């Protein structure tokens, strides 16, 4: 009988996103959630009660001492990440870190260096990159179907009236308001990490513009946050647009990859990947037939999603489960983490460059 090793997992930070971590950890047979921790005991208690987690703590040191977890999920506000990573790796723990990684690029570098120096694995919750459509896109690029990447367009829509938006708008003390990039910094990882995969430049040229959307379309007044962001990124061989919008509807989450052979359209909401192919049909047929080919593409994608649903592989955070599984596997096998440090650093560098342009007074 093969015995699988069970990793002891602990979570520090019992806010909204911790629910998703608990739910995904519980689906992984090789992981065992042993404890949760939050500086605010009421928050630690509520997570423990709602999910029947064996122990809860309001003291991180005590949790590390008593539970000796193999992996710590850090889901606290980003200002605390560097200190918590240092403490956890010193206690021998591997780290699964929620985004935003840290307020500044320098913190991100230090945090990765701390994990490296302690010979501990660290990865960041870039879960959309581990969704089925994102993986399919990788296969298309790797197989040469797209050709060389010429340009990328990453779009991320946001609902300021939704659960997450309301939380920060109702609370003037919310940690998001203290981030150098404010609202943008809380979501921009998911916009840029897709670009970083296919635009390998360490120092691309970046031009960013941010503004507050038209107040006539504001569902709720009272927020003075900049909530629209447009970024142009220019690398040596490819360019990219990154768009964040709190006003465009429907709320989308997509990536378009334009290649020298074909163009791929990834819709993370519908979970589809379609190809705009080079046409060989003559004359008017070249305009007549392509919509049917695209429709066929969508039909097949839809059937694929039905298949995933019927096999219970269509959860909202399915990508997080896949990322976690790969991360836990890399610990057990002592192999490389699923996300390279260089990729995390590139995302962080792009973010810092953007915030320097849109919030210069904060970073001055």
């Amino acid at each position, binding site marked *: 009988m093969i015995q699988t090793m069970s990793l002891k997992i602990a979570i520090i930070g019992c806010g*909204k996103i911790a629910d998703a971590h608990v739910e995904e950890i519980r689906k992984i047979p090789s992981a065992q959630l042993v404890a949760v921790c939050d500086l605010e005991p009421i*928050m630690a208690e*509520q997570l423990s009660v709602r999910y029947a987690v064996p122990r809860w703590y309001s003291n991180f040191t005590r949790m590390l001492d008593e539970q000796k977890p193999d992996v710590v999920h850090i889901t606290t506000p980003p200002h605390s990440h560097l200190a918590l990573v240092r403490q956890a790796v010193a206690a021998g723990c591997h780290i699964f870190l929620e985004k935003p990684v840290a307020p500044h690029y320098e913190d991100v570098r230090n945090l990765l260096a701390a994990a490296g120096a302690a010979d501990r694995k660290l990865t960041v919750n870039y879960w959309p990159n581990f969704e089925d459509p994102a993986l399919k896109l990788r296969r298309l690029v790797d197989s040469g179907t797209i050709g060389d990447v010429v340009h990328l367009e990453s779009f991320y829509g946001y609902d300021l009236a939704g659960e997450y938006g*309301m939380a920060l708008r*109702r609370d003037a003390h919310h940690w998001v308001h203290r981030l150098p990039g404010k609202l943008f910094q809380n979501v921009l990882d998911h916009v840029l990490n897709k670009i970083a995969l296919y635009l390998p430049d360490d120092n691309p040229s970046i031009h960013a513009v941010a503004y507050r959307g038209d107040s006539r379309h504001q569902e709720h007044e009272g927020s003075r946050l900049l909530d629209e962001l447009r970024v142009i990124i220019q690398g040596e061989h490819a360019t990219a647009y990154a768009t964040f919008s709190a006003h465009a509807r429907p709320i989308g989450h997509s990536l378009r990859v334009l290649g020298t052979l074909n163009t791929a359209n990834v819709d993370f909401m519908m979970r589809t990947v379609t190809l705009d192919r080079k046409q060989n049909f003559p004359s008017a047929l070249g305009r007549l037939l392509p919509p049917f080919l695209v429709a066929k593409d969508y039909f097949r994608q839809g059937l694929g999603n039905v298949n995933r649903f019927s096999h*219970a592989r269509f959860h909202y955070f399915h990508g997080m489960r896949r990322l976690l599984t790969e991360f836990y596997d890399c610990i057990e096998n002592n192999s490389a983490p699923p996300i390279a440090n260089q990729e995390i650093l590139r995302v962080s560098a792009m973010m810092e460059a953007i915030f320097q342009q849109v919030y210069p007074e904060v970073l001055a």
Partner: protein
Amino acid sequence: MKVLVTGAGGFLGVRTVERLIAHGYVDIRCFLRDPSKTTALKRVSQSCPSAQLEYCYGNLRSKADCVNAVEGAALVIHLAAGLKGSPAELVADSVVASRNLLEAIDARPSPPIQQTRIVLVSSFGVYGVASLARGARITEKTPLETHPELRDAYSYSKLRQEQLFWEHQQNTGFELVVLRPGVIYGPGGGTFSNRVGLQIGPVFAFLGGNNVLPLSHVANCAEAIVVAGTHPDTAGQIFNVHDDDLPTTAKYLHEYKRRVRKIRSIRLPYFVTQTLATMLEAYHRRSQGQLPAVLTRYKAAAAWAGNKFDNAKLRSTGWRQLVSTADGMAETFRSLRLTVTMK
């Protein structure tokens, strides 16, 4: 006497301030999170020039804001609570905020906490009704929920909030009065309590059948808060709050359709609801949560098992229903109709 009302800008808060003034309390500090919600309170203030309303803005999650809020208040009416959002948000807004408020009252120099009366507005959601027999009567002696994790996050947050108040009351000795309202309704409030049913896509699943709907018109609820909350003999007491002449959920839905708008509804008897809940629960478990467990047998038993209600204890304090259910429903549906027409 200085009165602090937390959540004063909300649906129930404005009416509570109104009833406080009607009962002769004129020195009122209104604590609000959103300054834009002061408008309704200013209208109340204008209609009673002798009232001195003080507006205090902040968030009870902030300990510093709590210190400002509680200064000098000998009567605290705590209405602020998390009503929507993620479970963590509900707990932070109801439980963490309450703990901060209690600590601020305890820490202030005057008046001491022992000379302070705190009125907590809790909820029917704290009762452990799922384990009772069908049709059981809910009174103040009904046991509290022992499995909040099987209910919704709102019930958990309100239960933990109430426990917190009783723990602090035991430790510090202030006067605590707890009110547990049923379904608060009125112009400006919600449309359907889940005791009536659930909107599932374009169809309304009507699950309440002929169950009694424990309505409390917002004005009646506010009156209960002031009458029971300030009565000299009610310290340490709990009161269920609902109106005298309660309709059935069928009557409520029928009147809604007649006076507001037609909606497509499907009536599901209790045994069908329980069967569906069993299936959904099984699927939720098997698929590891691919569809959320919005309907479980436990939740169904808590919401649609046909409980009876009793407000005798509230009436013993001298509380009387100000707005009849017929008038209250007519007024509410007029307001909802207006909203629908404007859309």
